[in-house]
């Protein structure tokens, strides 16, 4: 019996005697003449331990790392996959008799299915589950995930206030809400800029005069960022209100660039 390629610390090797599942599956040598040989016997022991785990896997008895090892071992070992198929055939024959064995089964079906699945995009296959996994991976990597629709106003306000996002969730219409969140931030930024000009202009005045309302001067050039147009258009389409729950109609997507810039 060909032994499958398994890692040294796997319960599928007879040397891994400390693993509880390995101990449980370490069957005796009684009545097996093949085991009496030294090297062939060792190979047979390993194969039998792997086959016993295979039998347990058929019955859904493996869990955790042992289960993962079994799946991995069968992926690497054609012999174990063949044993998997034969064990299932035995069960089918016991339950249905001759009829179970009448229809020939193509050995290549599983391989053809695997080949087609290999080119299946994971998101198309699994939808939100896969994207959630992606968000989780990004979160672990320190990349902030896009907030969900219920979090957009809160997230935007917290971002302005400097507080980290409290929740990371995913929605199927995530890109739309991402734009909406950015629109809210842009609205707040524009509002803050106007407010800064109204309140903070005196700090930059060299004469120390009383702050006055900033007025557009001929030397100042009004710049319009086309992206702001797009963001605000998306924002207006969504709800017509800003992240601060205030009408945003009076805000204009304009910025002033001073002489020094």
């Amino acid at each position, binding site marked *: 019996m060909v032994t499958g390629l398994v890692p040294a610390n796997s319960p599928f090797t007879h040397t891994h005697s400390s693993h509880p599942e390995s101990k*449980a*599956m370490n*069957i005796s040598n009684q009545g097996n003449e093949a085991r009496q040989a030294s090297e062939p016997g060792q190979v047979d022991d390993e194969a*039998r331990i792997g*086959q*016993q785990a295979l*039998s*347990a896997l*058929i*019955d859904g*008895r*493996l*869990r955790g790392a042992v*289960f*993962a090892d079994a*799946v*991995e071992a*069968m*992926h690497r070992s054609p012999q174990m*996959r063949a*044993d*998997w*198929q*034969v064990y*299932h*055939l*035995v*069960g*089918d*024959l*016991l*339950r*249905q*008799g*001759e*009829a*179970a*064995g*009448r*229809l*020939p*089964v*193509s050995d290549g*079906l*599983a391989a*053809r*299915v*695997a080949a*087609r*699945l*290999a080119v*299946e995009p*994971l998101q198309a*296959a*699994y*939808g*939100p*589950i*896969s994207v959630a*996994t992606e968000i989780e991976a990004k979160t672990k990597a320190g990349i902030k995930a896009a907030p969900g629709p219920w979090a957009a106003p809160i997230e935007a306000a917290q971002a302005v206030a400097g507080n980290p996002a409290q929740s990371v969730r995913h929605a199927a219409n995530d890109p739309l809400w991402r734009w909406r969140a950015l629109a809210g931030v842009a609205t707040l930024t524009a509002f803050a800029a106007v407010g800064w000009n109204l309140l903070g202009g005196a700090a930059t005045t060299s004469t120390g005069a009383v702050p006055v309302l900033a007025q557009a001067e001929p030397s100042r050039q009004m710049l319009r960022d086309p992206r702001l147009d797009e963001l605000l258009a998306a924002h207006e389409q969504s709800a017509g209100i800003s992240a601060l729950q205030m009408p945003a109609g009076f805000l204009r997507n304009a910025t002033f660039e001073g002489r020094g810039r």
Partner: protein
Amino acid sequence: MLVERTVAGDQRAFELLVIKYQRRIQRLIGRMVRDVDLVEDIAQETFIRAYRALHQFRGDAQFYTWLYRIAVNTAKKALVDLKRNPVLSENALRERDDDDNETFGIGNDLISDETPETLYAAKEIAETVTAAMQDLPQELRQALTLREIDGLSYEEIAEVMRCPIGTVRSRIFRAREAVSTRIRPLLENQAGKRW
């Protein structure tokens, strides 16, 4: 567990599910379609659809029951497509009395690739399994019968046989391996005949 692992993204676990259920699925489809190549194509499409829909499997029913429904629907769609095709092979379809009948009995009709030799081979394998079971020690035969035919869990078998669960696991494995050892040479002899 294999279903859960597949949903988690391990396609290799799904490959094991395919190997596990391909015989039953192909036999199911074979009751509707005669052509063996078409049976395989429909079976392949069934597993592809199952993979794509696996995240919708809620686990409230047996996986095979869920897979069964997909296979039936896939086969029905294939049959509809075949009937629309003017170049239709009559040998590809089986005659059915009731198109709405979803319960299929065990068919005894020949499929296109079956020959008396393959029928004899199937009979020989079935008889070998029966003989192997009779040659097993009583405790091994009982353990495997309770598991494969009666569908008892290891815990239930341990209670029936009044032995530890580890002993149940060992006995089932030894019985499986003993029976498999008897039929492997027959399967290898049939390897050229699509076994």
